[in-house]
């Protein structure tokens, strides 16, 4: 926890909806003075909205934003001491480079000679010194980017906000600009708040990463924390390559997955508890020593990736794992593998099964997910509020509507070694999680069917008194 005087921005319980779509759900975080912090997540996760709220474009529905201890939610953007670099640069097309960069200073009525000095200085910083008189539309993407950065920095803001500034550049240009941005940050010493969906970029640039998904913060930490110790499946899957598997915590420091038992370093999960396990592909090692071998597998594919070989193996227990190694193994080879206890990351399961607040709407009928389902309602009366539980593997997905109870779209696919764990957004807006061996694509329209005997009803827990 940082000292109060080191915190420059603090967001507390920020929520925001656009229409009936909740874009930010109770976001709380703080930004340390001078650090390079990145909001990372897939499109639609709320990272850009958060940035814009800090910049002053839009007001939160609830919660507070403070800068240097003062609340700024009511302060308009032109009075906040921070500047934004927009995703598509937003350079003023009717002004040349010089006038674009000088825009903020001219508004403050800074004398001409001072403006000239500062423009030249900042253009030098972004290596665009000879471009003062150029028409901005004649510049390349990378050049426009630098001018946009110069235009923001010249106002000497306390915080620089960057909204996916490198998204429109090609790969090589992006990598070069990343290095330049990092150096700029070091040189200027101001706070950078950066937004991106590119996890590699976040890992390269940041002091702190805030991983977001669906309007909620998933994890906050340093790049190494996030990479080595993801707290849930989403973070594990989003950052780097991972093998994410269903596991079982036997007791402290002993976990079972892929039908083998392993020593690990995690504690505090309890005994005999279902968990999710993450092992990075580069952390599974080949061995020729039978004593070190923890499990055997057969190689089923091997691809050269430049830096390493990427291989898929089928374990002796029917699971598929991805391994990255500098040496290749031929397809069909039987190999011996082991994993270090340090490299096994155990994560709490976010949910054990699908649970919904439901209502009994007649004999043998219950309503949840905006639809009626047939199920056994003995012991419950018409109108009762109940909790409906459906296990992941009991949800049936169809590629047609006619027999389905309801429909939805696949929004997230997690491969878990021997099955897929899908997140499906149903037509009523709520999510349902499904375990299946069928291969679906993200965005696929699906029919959802739940057999009556797969729905367990139970009394809801008493609300807090």
């Amino acid at each position, binding site marked *: 926890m940082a000292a109060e005087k080191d915190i420059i921005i603090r967001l507390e319980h920020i929520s925001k909806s656009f229409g009936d779509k909740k874009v930010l759900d109770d976001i709380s975080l703080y930004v340390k003075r001078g650090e390079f912090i990145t909001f990372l997540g897939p499109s639609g996760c709320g990272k850009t909205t958060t940035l814009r709220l800090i910049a002053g474009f839009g007001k939160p529905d609830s919660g507070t934003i403070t800068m240097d201890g003062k609340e700024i939610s009511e302060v308009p*953007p*032109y009075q906040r001491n921070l500047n934004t670099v*927009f995703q598509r640069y937003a350079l*003023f097309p009717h002004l040349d480079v010089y006038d674009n960069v000088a825009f903020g200073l001219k508004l403050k009525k800074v004398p001409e000679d001072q403006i000239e000095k500062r423009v030249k200085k900042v253009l030098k910083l972004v290596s665009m010194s000879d471009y003062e008189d150029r028409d901005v539309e004649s510049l390349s993407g990378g050049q426009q980017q630098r001018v946009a950065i110069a235009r923001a920095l010249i106002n000497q803001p306390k915080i620089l906000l960057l909204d996916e500034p490198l998204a429109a550049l090609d790969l090589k240009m992006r990598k070069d600009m990343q290095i330049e941005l990092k150096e700029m940050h070091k040189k200027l010493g101001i706070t950078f708040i950066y937004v991106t969906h590119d996890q590699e970029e976040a890992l390269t640039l940041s002091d702190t990463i805030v991983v977001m998904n669906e309007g909620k913060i998933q994890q906050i930490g340093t790049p190494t924390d996030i990479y080595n110790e993801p707290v849930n499946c989403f973070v594990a899957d989003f950052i780097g390559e991972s093998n994410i598997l269903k596991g079982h915590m036997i007791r402290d420091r002993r976990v079972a997955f892929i039908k083998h038992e392993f020593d690990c370093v995690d504690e505090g999960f309890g005994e005999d508890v279902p968990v999710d396990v993450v092992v990075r592909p580069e952390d599974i090692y080949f061995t020729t020593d039978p004593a070190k071998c923890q499990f055997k597998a057969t190689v089923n594919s091997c691809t050269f990736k430049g830096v390493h070989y990427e291989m898929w193996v089928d374990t002796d227990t029917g699971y598929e794992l991805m391994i990255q190694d500098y040496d290749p193994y031929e397809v069909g080879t039987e190999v011996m593998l082991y994993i270090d206890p340090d490299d096994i990351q155990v994560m709490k399961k976010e949910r054990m099964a699908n649970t919904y607040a439901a209502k009994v709407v007649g004999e043998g009928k219950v309503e949840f997910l905006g639809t009626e389902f047939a199920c056994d309602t003995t012991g419950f009366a018409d109108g009762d509020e109940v909790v409906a539980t459906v296990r992941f593997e009991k949800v049936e997905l169809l590629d047609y509507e006619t027999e389905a109870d309801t429909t939805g779209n696949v929004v997230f696919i997690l491969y878990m070694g021997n099955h897929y764990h899908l997140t499906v957004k149903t037509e009523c807006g709520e999510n349902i999680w499904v375990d299946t061996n069928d291969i679906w694509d993200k965005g696929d329209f699906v029919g959802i069917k739940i057999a009556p005997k797969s729905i367990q009803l139970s009394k809801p827990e008493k609300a807090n008194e």
Partner: protein
Amino acid sequence: MNGKKILAKAYLWLLILVLYAPIAFIVIFSFTEAKSLGNWTGFSTQLYANLFTGSIQNASGLQSAVINTLLIALVASIFATILGTVAAIGIFHLRGRKKQTMTFLNNIPMINPDIITGVSLFLLFVFLGISQGYLTVILAHITFCTPYVVLNVMPKLKQMNPNIYEAALDLGATPAQALRKVLVPALRPGMISGFILSFTMSLDDFAVTFFTRGTIGLDTLSTYIYTDARKGGLTPELKPLMSIIFLVILVVLLVINVRQSKTPEKQR
């Protein structure tokens, strides 16, 4: 393939010949003093001279008609451009039912034949008890011109990088400053083309002016020609006037189109 091309070209040129025959007719006969169209009494530029010195027979009706036409077009276009630009910005930010309604209402003056616009506005002014004259004609012209401005400014709004207004705010501009220094310059090309289109539609209008000008003797060029032709004779000075207008339009259109084909299309 060549035969096809020749046939095609011939077809086009035949059409052009037919299209321009009447216009050529006017231009040729503007160089003669004969009172009625179609009479050739020898080459003369007298009519052109008359036009400029203002010594036209049948009173200064023609002169004042020309001045009225230009004045009304100018005033109406300026108001239409301002109203239309503000409206376009507003409509751009609307969604759903409201946007549909505004777009529909905006389209009505463009779909309505001018006679309907003229008659309906006539009834409006009678109903409201407004005496008809310059004011009503200008209001009427603004009514049918503004939709075209909206139509020309909208694409510019859609093309504009949505962030530039915010960028200005971010750099310290108040909303008013951001509007002036950033938004308006970005929309300027659309405003200009909207203005030009308004001006042209106003210049060319007949029916709407006809019904809204009242009985004070207000004439625009179109109504002057109408009354003139109905009386039987045609003020001879109209011939050089039309020829000059034709020449001006020809030059302007050629210049615009040649410039457009020279400058490369600006990307997004």
